[in-house]
């Protein structure tokens, strides 16, 4: 009860993760613009996005442990923590030279598919119940559709289209997460069961 009293609201946690994902997106967009050769010229830069992805996975564990409003939320947060750490860890292994295969990029496919499915499964309400519900559906489908980009990268690692799509996916996810409110209307719709609406 004490923790519940002092812990930040769920919408704030979404905004903090949106900030991390915005940084991820900008790093990936910059890498696409300058190309992998220039990006890899400074060794520390190669570790930036996989390291940040891994860190976001680690930070997702306290979210799983503290936001226990339902079992399915815990499972969803736990699965995000695992797939973020899996992708970050695999990419760190690749940039460190411990892992060689281009097919490690498939871990990103798994991450996007699992994350998208978790968003859709743990949202129990329809699209227009409230803004949070709408965003959960939008995020889920965005992630599932975007899984095609790392899938293409696994087979065509130098594809600019696939790399651009993968990078822009993170910017879209960041925008959607920044839009989140715990209870707010979406396009004029707001369920009477959704609490007190905020702007």
């Amino acid at each position, binding site marked *: 009860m004490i923790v519940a009293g002092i812990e930040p609201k769920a919408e704030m946690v979404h905004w*903090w993760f949106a900030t991390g994902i915005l940084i991820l997106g900008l790093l990936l967009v910059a890498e696409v613009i*300058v190309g992998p*050769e*220039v990006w890899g010229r*400074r060794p520390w*830069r190669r570790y930036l996005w996989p390291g940040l992805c891994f860190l976001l996975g680690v930070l997702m564990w306290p979210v799983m442990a503290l936001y226990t409003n339902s079992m399915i939320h815990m499972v969803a947060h736990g699965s995000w923590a695992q797939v973020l750490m899996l992708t970050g860890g695999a990419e760190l292994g690749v940039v460190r030279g411990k892992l060689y295969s281009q097919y490690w990029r498939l871990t990103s496919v798994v991450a996007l598919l699992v994350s998208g499915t978790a968003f859709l499964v743990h949202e129990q309400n329809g699209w227009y119940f409230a803004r949070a519900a709408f965003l959960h559906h939008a995020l889920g489908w965005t992630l599932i559709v975007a899984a095609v980009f790392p899938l293409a990268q696994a087979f065509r690692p130098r594809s600019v289209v696939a790399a651009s799509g993968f990078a822009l996916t993170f910017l879209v996810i960041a925008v959607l997460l920044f839009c989140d409110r715990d209870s707010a209307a979406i396009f004029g719709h707001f369920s009477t069961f959704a609490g007190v609406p905020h702007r």
Partner: protein
Amino acid sequence: MSADYAHERLGQTEKEHTARAVSSTRVRIVLALGPATAIGGIAWAFLQPWRLTLLHPYGQGFWWLFAEPPLYVVLVGVLFRLLIAPGLVEDMEGTD
């Protein structure tokens, strides 16, 4: 100077010009990424000022004063411009 050699040199110069133009465009885009992000955050703050509790801080708890999403976006843009973009530009210019 033979005609073949002159044509070859001309072709090389054109290629170098094209490569430099592409590189210069990339430099501009990389330098613009951070400011564009920051401007996005500022625009958001103007469009939805109620998302900035610092503008009406009385009665707000710690978390509400700490959570300022438009400022986070501005901060990300500024940090990208200051910490990431200069090194990238330097490395791109080193390639030319």
